[in-house]
């Protein structure tokens, strides 16, 4: 393991891609660095060329129009947490940002870094998955879009190819009557999640659920959707829903998650907590939808 590395400072996304292409596997994109710095120091990654993205101002933004919101990949977590653009259904992104580590981390950590580090417990992953976000990947010559649902492959592994740079997250703004919930269980606010999860539900004018998404973090090698639990709620009338069905959703989630035992929690506890969070999220979301209906 080398004692130091060569530091490169691109000022545009394309310049960053060119550096990466030039040094290929010997180089790594460096965003806030809050994960990479530790991995480098602990010799978990090799790094000959550090392509520091910190000075690419073009990738720090939150832009909203009528039907979508676009977030630059180098947007700091504390900018998300303080963004008034992230309101209504999008507020789960803000809530997840507020719970991502202590304030001192959120000043430097970025949304792109949180996603590309591909921790199973990445706090910003589940909100983006349930909201149907897409991620934009760039090389010096091409770009492509990937659904957040398909972004994570395994622990520390994403669909990004070696020289692709994540530049933007695009989130459609729900146009129908939609409610969302973000929940996280951790030991204290600084902590990495034992379990985190997001839920989104949309209903039609009659109160029938037309779209339901539930995603869980820290319970499998990647953040995962539990489609079998989502299906139980599809087509259900929110005014006639019975508690037994909500319990069934919780049980389904408990069956489907595949957690491991680690320093933060046992697998058994994670499974139980997943069930509890699923039930809470369903109740939160239904409560919110019912209020919306009465207005």
């Amino acid at each position, binding site marked *: 393991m080398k004692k130091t590395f060569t530091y490169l400072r691109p000022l545009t996304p394309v310049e960053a891609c060119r550096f990466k292409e030039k040094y290929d596997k010997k180089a790594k994109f460096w965003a*806030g660095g809050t994960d990479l710095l530790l991995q480098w120091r602990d010799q978990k990654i090799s790094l000959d060329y550090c392509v520091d993205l910190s000075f690419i101002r073009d990738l720090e933004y939150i832009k909203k129009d009528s039907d979508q919101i676009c977030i630059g990949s180098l947007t700091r977590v504390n900018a998300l947490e303080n963004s008034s653009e992230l309101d209504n259904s999008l507020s789960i992104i803000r809530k997840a940002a507020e719970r991502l580590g202590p304030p001192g981390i959120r000043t*430097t950590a970025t949304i792109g870094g949180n996603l590309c580090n591909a921790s199973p417990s990445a706090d910003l992953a589940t909100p983006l998955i349930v909201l149907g976000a897409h991620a934009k990947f760039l090389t010096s010559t091409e770009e492509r879009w990937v659904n957040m649902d398909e972004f994570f492959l395994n622990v520390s592994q994403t669909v990004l190819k070696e020289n692709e740079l994540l530049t933007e997250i695009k989130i459609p703004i729900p146009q129908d009557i939609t409610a969302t919930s973000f929940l996280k269980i951790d030991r204290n606010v600084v902590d990495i999640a034992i379990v985190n999860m997001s839920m989104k539900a949309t209903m039609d004018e009659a109160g029938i659920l037309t779209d339901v998404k539930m995603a869980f973090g820290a319970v499998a090698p990647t953040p995962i959707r539990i489609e079998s639990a989502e299906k139980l709620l599809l087509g259900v009338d929110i005014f006639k829903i019975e508690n037994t069905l909500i319990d069934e959703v919780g049980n389904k989630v408990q069956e489907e998650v595949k957690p491991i035992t680690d320093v933060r929690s046992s697998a058994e506890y994670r499974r139980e907590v997943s069930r509890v969070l699923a039930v809470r999220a369903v109740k939160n979301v239904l409560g919110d939808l019912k209020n919306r209906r009465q207005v």
Partner: protein
Amino acid sequence: MITLMVNDKEYQLEIEPHETLVDVLQKRLGLMGVRISCGQGECGACTILLDNKPALSCMMLACQAEGKKILTIEGVGSYDNLHPIQESFIEEHGFQCGFCTPGVIMTSKSLLETKPESNASEIAMSLSGHICRCGAYPKIIKSVQNAAKKLEESHGK
């Protein structure tokens, strides 16, 4: 060669690319108020202000701080002219050993500048990344509340 703006002074430094900001501040500039403790973003002792926002100086490269305003406890007040937050920590006994105090004061300063009317639970949330092994937490929160009052009075004048 990098240029860092620390406590309103410009420093030209020849450093290794992998050096963290905390290493440069403490070992090269001798700013001993910036503590090195856990080295992995768990304890908050190395907290400085980066463009007025709290940041963990052990979790970033010094290179990444170029062009930003860095403030350490040494730039907050002087021995003869303490900042109201520092006065409050003395008056309310907001520490015992004092090791975590510089970091705590930096985060508190940023909080009181952005949300001067923070209540006890907001103060606690904001300081959640700081570990005090003496367990002075209740008095730390009292110190910050006292500081908020002092700052409000001094602004009122």
